C-alpha cells in the first residue's frame, strides 16, 4: 500500500470514524491523544489571540500617544514662536519709549531729563576721581526775532541747524542737549575750563560756517549764539554749576552777544 499523502488531521479523523477499529485499544488511545491535542491547540490559539490583542492595544496606544505628543509639540512650538514675537514687540516699544523720554523731539538731542541724569553721574564721578567737568550754556541770539520775522517753522529749522553744528564740533564723549526753548547745555566731561574754551571756539566756528536753510542770497539770517562756561568745583552740586554757567551766559549777552564768557 502506497504511503497516505493526505494531511495527518484527515487520516486520523478517518481512522477514528472507521467502524472496523471499534473496540480496538489503539483506537481508544488515539482518540484520547487526538482530543488532548485539539485542546492544546485551542488553548494555544486563544493565548496567541489574547496576546495579539494586547499587542495591538499597546500599539494603538503608542500611536495615539505619539500623535498627542506631536500635536502638543506643534502647539508648544507655535506658542513659543508667538511669544517670541510678542517679546520683540515689547522690546521695540521699550526702545521707542526710552527714546521718547530721553530725547528732544525737535532736535534729536538729549532732553533736559537725560542731561540732568548725566549731570548727576558726572558730578559723582568728578567727586570720586578728583577731576572736574565744564558746562557750557548756549543761547541762540535774538531767537524771538527769528521766530517773529520768519515764522516758527524757520525758527524750528534754525534750532535743528544749531543742534547739528554743535554736534559736529563736539568730541565723541561730550554731551549736548536742549535745556529748554532756544537754550542748549553742553557737558564736557573731564575737561578744565581752559580746555573747554577751544571746544567752544569750534562750536562757534561751526555755527558761523553753517548758512541757514532757505535763505535768499545776500539776505541771509545769521544765527549766532552767546555762551557761558563754568567748571565744576569740588563739593559743588551740579545745579550750582549750571547756575554759574547761566550767569556767565548773561554776561556774554550783556557784552553784546555772539561771544562767550567764563564764570
Amino acid at each position, binding site marked *: 500500500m502506497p504511503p497516505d499523502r493526505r494531511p495527518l488531521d484527515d487520516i486520523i479523523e478517518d481512522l477514528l470514524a472507521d467502524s472496523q477499529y471499534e473496540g480496538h485499544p489503539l483506537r481508544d488511545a488515539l482518540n484520547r491523544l487526538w482530543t488532548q491535542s485539539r485542546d492544546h491547540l485551542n488553548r494555544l490559539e486563544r493565548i496567541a489571540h489574547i496576546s495579539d490583542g494586547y499587542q495591538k492595544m499597546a500599539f494603538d496606544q503608542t500611536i495615539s500617544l505619539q500623535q498627542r505628543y506631536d500635536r502638543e509639540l506643534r502647539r508648544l512650538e*507655535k*506658542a513659543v*514662536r508667538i*511669544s517670541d*514675537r*510678542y517679546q*520683540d*514687540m515689547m522690546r521695540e516699544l521699550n526702545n521707542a519709549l526710552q527714546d521718547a523720554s530721553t530725547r528732544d523731539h525737535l532736535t534729536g538731542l538729549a532732553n533736559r531729563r537725560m542731561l540732568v541724569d548725566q549731570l548727576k553721574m558726572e558730578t559723582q564721578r568728578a567727586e570720586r576721581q578728583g577731576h572736574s567737568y565744564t558746562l557750557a550754556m548756549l543761547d541762540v541770539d535774538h531767537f524771538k526775532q527769528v521766530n517773529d520775522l520768519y515764522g516758527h517753522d524757520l525758527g524750528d529749522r534754525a534750532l535743528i541747524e544749531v543742534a547739528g553744528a554743535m554736534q559736529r564740533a563736539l568730541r565723541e564723549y561730550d554731551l549736548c542737549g536742549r535745556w529748554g526753548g532756544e537754550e542748549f547745555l553742553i557737558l564736557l566731561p573731564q575737561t578744565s575750563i581752559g580746555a573747554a574754551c577751544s571746544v567752544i571756539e569750534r562750536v562757534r566756528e561751526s555755527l558761523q560756517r553753517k548758512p541757514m536753510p532757505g535763505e535768499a542770497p545776500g539776505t541771509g539770517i545769521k544765527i549766532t549764539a552767546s555762551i557761558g562756561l563754568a567748571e565744576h568745583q569740588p563739593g559743588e552740586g551740579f545745579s550750582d554749576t549750571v547756575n554759574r554757567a547761566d550767569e556767565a551766559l548773561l554776561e556774554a549777552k550783556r557784552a553784546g552777544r555772539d561771544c562767550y564768557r567764563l564764570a
Partner: protein
Amino acid sequence: MTEEATMIIDDLCIPGTQSTPDIRTDGAAGRIFMQGDSYPENTLELFGPVISWVERYLETGDRPLTLELRLIYLNTSSIKAMMDIFDLLEVAHGKSRIVAVTWYYDSRNERVAELAGEFREDCSFPFDIQPRND
C-alpha cells in the same frame, strides 16, 4: 436642546487689571469680549473659567458664538490659553457650529495684527483682524 438651556450658563464678568484683560461673556447674545494686556500670575485661575464657559456653551444648544478681542500683550501661558479656546471653536466649527473671531488692533501698532495672524493660521472658521483708530 432648547434656547433656555443655553441661557442657564452663568455669564462671566471679570474686570480688567494692569496685568489681566477685561473679560465678559454674554450667553444670551452668544458673545465673548476680551480687552487689554494679559500676563496674569495664575493663568489657569483667569482662563480656566473662560475655557469652561466656552466648552459648556458649545455643548449646549446650537447657537452661534462670536469672540470680540482687543488684546494687546499676551504672555506665553495666555497665548496657550487663547490657543485652547480657538481649538474649541475649531472643533465646534468642524461640527457645523457657527463660530467667529474678530480681533481688533490699534492701527498704530501693526505688530498686534501680525500676531493675531499667527493665531489665525490653524483656524478654518471666520477670523477677522480689523484695525481701529481710537
